[in-house]
């Protein structure tokens, strides 16, 4: 099985999520991502994309997100690229207290924590005035 790759630019609107899930699904099918991992990949992509829509492009309606999805045997990588202010969610996002009860929990704060926990690798880099976040998922290869 060779490497497969999809590259797109999508508007930074949460309504684009379905399109994003379709793109991920196309590569996931090519590289035989196990069915029971698919939901987790969608989750991480959703959290990252929604954060860009809401924060990187806060107050703007014209933001765009570069999407690069690459797959090979046993590995799927989704890279999202935005031109918002420099922000490294891997290091800068606050870590929520996951032990608090119902009344003490605040909405939000959970997304980046789920991204940290559900990826095999989460990498940030600043590249040519853009934020680039790479989310990597690995699974055992079948023979």
């Amino acid at each position, binding site marked *: 099985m060779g490497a497969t790759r999809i590259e797109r630019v999508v508007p930074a609107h949460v309504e684009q999520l379905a399109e994003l899930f379709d793109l991920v699904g196309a590569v996931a099918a090519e590289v035989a991502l196990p069915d029971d991992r698919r939901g987790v990949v969608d*989750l991480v992509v959703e959290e990252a994309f929604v954060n860009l829509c809401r924060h990187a492009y806060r107050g703007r309606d014209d933001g765009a997100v570069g999407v690069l999805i690459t797959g090979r045997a046993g590995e799927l990588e989704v890279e999202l690229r935005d031109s918002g202010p420099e922000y490294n969610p891997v290091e800068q996002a606050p870590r929520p207290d996951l032990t608090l009860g119902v009344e003490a*929990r605040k909405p939000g704060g959970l997304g980046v924590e*789920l991204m940290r926990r559900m990826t095999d690798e989460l990498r940030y880099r600043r590249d040519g005035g853009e934020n680039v976040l790479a989310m990597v998922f690995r699974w055992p290869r079948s023979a």
Partner: protein
Amino acid sequence: MEMSTREERGFTVIATAGRVDTVTAPKFEAYCVAAIDAGARKLVLDFSQVAYISSAGLSSVLGVAKHAGHAGGTFAISGLSGMVREIFAISGFDTIVPVKADLEEALGSV
């Protein structure tokens, strides 16, 4: 995402099917809040047909739990499976909202 409500053994059972994500979560929460505001006090959320949830969905579940509590009602969620159960566990949500294995357990204990 599809939602429906039925009364069963004195409980209001709200069944959700599909994906509770950033786009659908506000509709999910509004639907449940409307049921509570219409008088539902023993609420069970049947999640056995929910295949996917994100943090937006978790936040909505939290919103429903708080709203039910403030209205003086009880609340439970049942039938978590697959990645939904995994995300409830990792986020700690399975310890802050009452999670029941299935509808039978929920209707027997809320």
